[in-house]
């Protein structure tokens, strides 16, 4: 666990730096214990700046899913909203199965890949 408090925090930059190091990190308020996503300089609603970076479990559930249709032979791809075990929801993609077979309620596990020369958080069926 690493912790970094405002004002040194650079939310977006830090998140992607961690991801580049192979770590999927979430912010958590020390006081409320609440996890947040996307990264910010302060907790939503309370404005608390006591945010620390905590490694995410990577476990989640598909909240909703769509298949983006492409002109063949370009393959279709999945876009999904994932509810993390820690509470927050994020947009991502479920890899490792045909995009059409991704189902709402499916248990998934985070995986960090590289795409377009950048680290990217995706999910696979758990």
């Amino acid at each position: 666990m690493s912790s970094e408090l405002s004002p040194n925090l650079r939310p977006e930059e830090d998140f992607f730096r961690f991801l580049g190091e192979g770590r999927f990190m979430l912010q958590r308020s020390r006081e409320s214990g609440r996890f947040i996503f996307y990264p910010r300089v302060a907790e939503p609603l309370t404005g608390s700046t006591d945010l620390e970076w905590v490694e995410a479990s990577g476990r989640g559930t598909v909240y909703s899913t769509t298949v983006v249709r492409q002109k063949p032979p370009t393959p279709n791809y999945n876009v999904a909203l994932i509810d993390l075990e820690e509470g927050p929801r994020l947009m991502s993609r479920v890899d490792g199965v045909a995009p059409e077979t991704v189902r709402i309620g499916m248990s998934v596990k985070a995986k960090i890949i590289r795409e377009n020369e950048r680290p990217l958080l995706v999910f696979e069926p758990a």
Partner: protein
Amino acid sequence: MMKDAFPRGGTAIVGTATFGIGEAPGFSNFDLAAHASIRALAAAGLRPRDVDGLFVVVMDEALAALNFADYLGIQPRFTDNCRSGGSSFQIQASIAALALAAGQCDVALIAYGSNQRSAAGKLVSSTSRPSPWETPYRPLRPISQYALAAARHMHQYGTTKEQLGEVALAARKWAQLNPEAFVRDELTLEQYLSARPISDPLNARDCCLVTDGAAAVVMVRADRARDLCARPAYLLGAAAETTHREMSSMADLTVTGVARAAQRAFAQAHIRPGDVDVVELYDAFTINTILFLEDMDFCPKGEGGRFICGGAIAPGGRLPVNTNGGGLSCVHPGMYGLFTMVEAARQIAGVCGQRQVPKVDIAIAQGNGGELSSEAVLVLGSEATL
């Protein structure tokens, strides 16, 4: 908290116009907005020089109200450039109502124009920074975001693809009664179901048109309305709610900000859903119509798909919805919100020809911005509702 003191019936729409619906090549956004504005003002016996409250937004010019004041040659004492997406115009109407009531202006003009179809041939997005949290996953913004809402609604409530299709078919049937509508040819359920898939469960016929078009609305205080217009549309209620920007921040993809906005607007207007004669919704996608009817409490949450079945919202149905053909079949020039206001006011004025709903006293004009992000609801009423 202070009691909501919205000036019910204190202001009215006294002039409306559309221009260039469909294709209007060779015009700038401001040319189109000017054509609509001149006509809307003329309908009320006014000219640009009479406007002292200017409310303008266009897709691709951040300071549009300044450009348009310059274009009209006016120096308005109240200027607004609201940017909440397609709900901007409803929000502008509520600001205009407050400004008029406070004597901050006497004649408010709300105008919009877009040449997106002729100029670009596709949706021209507003000037937003791509989201670092969504863009890497390549959602077809905004279609995929609405698809995620549709998928969730289908999962949670058993809403079917055929029910989404009913929304598209009803819109088309209304469009066939509207000479101004851009797409008026026959649409069958079979044609709907076999349309090109885009982002499941939405296909090409679930998505609004890409057209050119302009609209304008003129508002004044109620005491002057009857001098300028035979049948003004009085603003009885106006409320909005912002819920999110990132789709992942929307708490429940089956409940939109319309739920609370409508509750407040209906309370201001002293009406209930059963009092409404005609509903003009921002149907950027078929799922919108289902979500918004539920959120306005025309039916319980989750029942929207079943509610609209059997031609219930088509011509001759129990609740007339999107009587101009909507964004799905009439016009969608990037932002559609102002067109719901024009159609609602026209229905109250009784000037809708073949598609006129008999005896309209209460009409809803709703706007939607972003990806179900900003919702705004206007309740308009005839003189009989004052």
